């Protein structure tokens, strides 16, 4: 950051649309989810207003700055020590009272605050009226009403920030605490006159409270007189019955009561509209419907994904394989050497074509559907429904949230585990995240289910049955997650479940347009880009392996023959296992690689439908047992390359990264081995 840039910090409770405000101001796309703690690292962006450049820093969402979680420390330290020119505090118009808590705490640190009352549109719908002028008058800082999702009020917000640069608020609200405490604050403030920049009253409060990090700083600076003064004040307070805990209680209570008092003055609530959410929750999380409804929703999403992907998949396959022919013709006309022709067209292009036609459509449909559930606020309800199970295995209920995030992408799920405070429970969540299949693995499961278990003949019931089977596989994944969590809590990650608070935020209307644009553009382009980067080289490797011969046998066959004995034990074959290994960079290339390796040794050159694909697989010895084992192994094996690197980064430990690699792999091998042995032993096949 250059010194002349104006730094604006964006603070706020989780789930108040802070990231939407951030995106609205900077135009930088950053994901916003409807649950607590999603913005976990500090994102930066810039916007221009009045010919000035403003650097906007998105702080982690926090309820308070007084507890010592990582997020809160990050937010507090930034406001306190980085000294942003202005702090925008985003609050939820529909839940003002609780949000004011943070506003009051921040105003205690700095008076350069602009309060952004967001979600005004939601408030209007719920017939909640917030008197912004009155609020501004009470707080002594500017207040701007916004509806960031429809870009309402953002201009006024930028204007208020800009004005603050020349016109700092003078008379801001001050919270008065217990008389005894106020007296000691004054005493310590006298000793703090040398310290500029940091609000002395606030610092005095933190010192009285015994805030370690500040006391250590003063010890380092040898401010013994000050520290002695603090000790004496604390002693005097203890004498009137205010010990450390009582002091904290009084501070927090003082702020909460003030927030309550302000809220009573500026908000006109409409209780009736709050009831709506409670009524929905009474059904969605009820004993009778809670769990079945959850499974049904999952099933419906799969169903839409499966039927929705059918047609585009066929169209893409037609276009791309037609394209292969044209490409071949051009290569022939240009007299390109046969080996180069093979490498480029039959190796690289064909693998890419398979990834795009079979994998891309389900991914492009599943992702936005899942995001809609996320935006609605359904996922915290999943955590609420399943918490008891996670408690039983000594894990955190929020693990259900990170598990859900894994459906989109396991790497994202692993990053999401930051919302879990206990390090032990966080590791469990990271290690087990891979047991939910990510977006890149769904198409594999869908393709195999369609080919082997519901028949390739189209019937209206077929996708329904596919969705049902897929749901069963997910349930198996969740059961594995719970089982492995339990084993981990009893062995290498021993411990009791810790306390946590789960907020069930109000239901929100999903921003469908934004979701679709983001999914289609960002997500699909991302997958396409990755397909080019990963699938083409992998296709090239397969082609080279298939065409380089040692003693008349291709490298591919050598390698597959080498893997075969082990692969056979777990119901696979050498080619399949090799494809999983080569699929390490990205799961979506596993099926295409299996196809490529079979085709390289097969006479079949044209392949453009699942029915033909099934023939190819059966010709290569696939049975329903193979299909089951491929699905099991797809559900349970090592995390993909991206996830692996993310785990390393998040845990800062190669040991736990290795554990995260081994645990799902071993579970997959055991499961496949047990199923295969069982089927063979009892002669089902």
């Amino acid at each position: 950051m250059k010194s002349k840039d104006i730094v604006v910090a964006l603070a706020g409770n989780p789930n108040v649309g802070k990231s939407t405000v951030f995106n609205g101001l900077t135009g930088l796309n950053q994901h916003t989810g409807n649950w607590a703690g999603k913005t976990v690292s500090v994102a930066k962006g810039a916007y221009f207003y009045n010919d000035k450049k403003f650097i906007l820093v998105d702080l982690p969402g926090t309820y308070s700055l007084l507890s010592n979680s990582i997020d809160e420390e990050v937010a507090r330290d930034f406001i306190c020590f980085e000294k942003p020119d202005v702090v925008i505090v985003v609050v939820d118009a529909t839940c003002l009272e609780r949000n004011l808590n943070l506003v009051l705490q921040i105003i205690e640190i700095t008076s350069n605050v602009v309060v952004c009352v967001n979600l005004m549109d939601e408030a209007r719908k719920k017939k909640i009226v917030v008197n912004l002028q009155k609020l501004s008058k009470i707080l002594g800082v500017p207040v701007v009403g916004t509806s960031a999702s429809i870009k309402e009020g953002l201009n006024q917000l930028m204007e208020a920030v800009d004005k603050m640069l020349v016109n700092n608020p003078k008379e801001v609200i001050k919270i008065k605490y217990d008389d005894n405490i106020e007296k000691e604050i004054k005493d310590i403030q006298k000793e703090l006159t040398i310290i500029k920049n940091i609000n002395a009253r606030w610092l005095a409060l933190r010192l009285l409270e015994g805030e370690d990090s500040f006391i250590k700083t003063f010890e380092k600076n040898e401010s013994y007189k000050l520290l002695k003064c603090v000790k004496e004040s604390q002693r005097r307070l203890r004498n009137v019955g205010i010990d450390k805990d009582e002091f904290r209680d009084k501070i927090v209570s003082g702020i909460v009561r003030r927030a309550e008092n302000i809220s009573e003055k500026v908000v006109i609530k409409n209780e009736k509209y709050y009831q709506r959410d409670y009524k929905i929750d009474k059904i969605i999380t009820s004993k009778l419907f809670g769990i079945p409804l959850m499974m049904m929703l999952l099933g419906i999403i799969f169903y839409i994904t499966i039927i929705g992907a059918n047609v585009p998949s066929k169209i893409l396959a037609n276009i791309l394989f037609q394209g292969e022919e044209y490409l071949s013709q051009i290569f022939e006309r240009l007299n390109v050497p046969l080996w180069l022709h093979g490498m480029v067209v039959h190796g690289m292009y064909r693998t890419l074509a398979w990834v795009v036609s079979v994998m891309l459509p389900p991914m492009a449909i599943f992702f936005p559907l899942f995001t809609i559930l996320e935006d609605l606020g359904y996922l915290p309800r999943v955590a609420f429904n399943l918490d008891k199970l996670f408690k039983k295995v000594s894990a955190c209920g929020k693990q259900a949230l990170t598990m859900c995030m894994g459906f989109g992408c396991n790497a994202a799920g692993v990053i999401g585990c930051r919302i879990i405070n206990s390090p032990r429970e966080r590791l469990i969540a990271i290690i087990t995240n891979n047991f939910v299949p990510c977006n890149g693995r769904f198409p594999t499961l869908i393709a195999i289910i369609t080919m082997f278990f519901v028949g390739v003949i189209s019937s209206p019931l077929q996708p329904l049955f596919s969705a049902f089977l897929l749901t069963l596989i997910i349930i198996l994944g969740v059961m594995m997650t719970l089982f492995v969590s339990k084993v981990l809590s009893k062995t290498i990650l021993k411990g009791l479940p810790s306390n946590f608070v789960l907020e069930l935020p109000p239901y929100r209307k999903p921003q469908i347009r934004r979701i679709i644009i983001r999914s289609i553009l960002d997500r699909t382009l991302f997958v396409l880009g990755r397909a080019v980067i990963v699938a083409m080289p992998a296709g090239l490797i397969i082609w080279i392996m298939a065409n380089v011969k040692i003693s008349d046998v291709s490298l591919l066959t050598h390698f597959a023959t080498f893997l075969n004995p082990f692969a056979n034990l777990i119901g696979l074959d050498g080619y399949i296992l090799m494809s999983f290994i080569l699929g390490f960079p990205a799961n979506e290339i596993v099926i295409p690689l299996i196809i490529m390796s079979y085709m390289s040794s097969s006479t079949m050159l044209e392949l453009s439908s699942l029915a033909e694909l099934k023939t190819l697989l059966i010709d290569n010895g696939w049975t329903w047992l193979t299909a089951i084992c491929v699905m099991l192994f797809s559900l349970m094996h090592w995390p993909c390359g991206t996830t692996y690197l993310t785990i390393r980064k998040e845990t800062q430990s190669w040991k736990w990264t290795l554990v995260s690699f081994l645990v799902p792999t071993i579970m997959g091998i055991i499961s496949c081995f047990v199923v295969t042995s069982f089927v063979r032993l009892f002669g089902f096949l």
Partner: protein
Amino acid sequence: MEDIFPLSKLEINEKGIVKKINIEGEFRRRLLDLGLIPDTEVTVLQKSPFGDPVAYLIRGAVIALRREIVDKILVERVLV
């Protein structure tokens, strides 16, 4: 006058006034931050499908808490 008793004893739709929080340290702070300070009214909203955790209405926000926690929060019943 009725004595104070754990929040976990309240039934769905019943209300209580928080009187004492028998939880120490960091997590106590977290609860206070949510506005769960003495004399705050809490409404029991909804049990999860397996009976635990339970969702409570605290100062306009819906918060789910596990059984072990609400056992240690003492309330006074509010007669509706």
